[in-house]
């Protein structure tokens, strides 16, 4: 799944550690989500959407059918 997490984070001048602290997860989790190696659960996706004041589909974009799953 593609996402705009890195862009949204950069717009706010937040480091991965800052975002991780706001989400109450590890920095590794933020990195894994940003690089597409880990798809967050629905509760975490909602948490991200709330944090960035955006809808989930504005942050995450599904891969086209037949795409390689992230994990």
């Amino acid at each position, binding site marked *: 799944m593609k996402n705009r997490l890195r862009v949204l984070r950069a717009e706010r001048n937040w480091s991965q550690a800052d975002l991780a602290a706001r989400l109450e*997860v590890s920095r590794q*989790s933020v990195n*894994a989500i940003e690089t597409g190696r880990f798809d967050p*659960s629905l509760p975490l996706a909602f948490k991200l959407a709330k944090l960035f004041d955006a809808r989930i589909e504005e942050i995450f974009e599904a891969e086209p059918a037949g795409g390689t799953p992230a*994990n």
Partner: protein
Amino acid sequence: MLFSGCNRNFSPLQRRSMAMFGGLMILSIALLALALESAEHNSVSKSLVMVLDLLPAIPIGAMIAVVSRYLTQETDEFIRLLVMRSLLWGIGTTMIADIVLAAVFIDLRALHLAVVYNIDVFTITAMIALSLQLRRAQ
């Protein structure tokens, strides 16, 4: 323990779980060594040998409970996934090691040693797998 070798700040839950897991692992190895020793001495009664043989099951069961509780309480779903993957690596490697051990040693004494060896192989493999995965996620 499972997270050693990687630079990260541990949560109180992780610290507590690692301390309990490590303590129980040492206790189970000590009890297994005691069972092995008692089995080799004819002076010890058969019923006591059986009790000593069964005793290590308690800390091993408690280790499973500690990991289970940790996985239930860990709020970071990515770390939870890495821990579960590492545990699978640990279990898989232990099973392979058992097959190799069974092929090499056909000895009753090896049965006791295999359990001690299982705990070591499982824990060390899980630690290495988790360290590597966390390093990859940096």
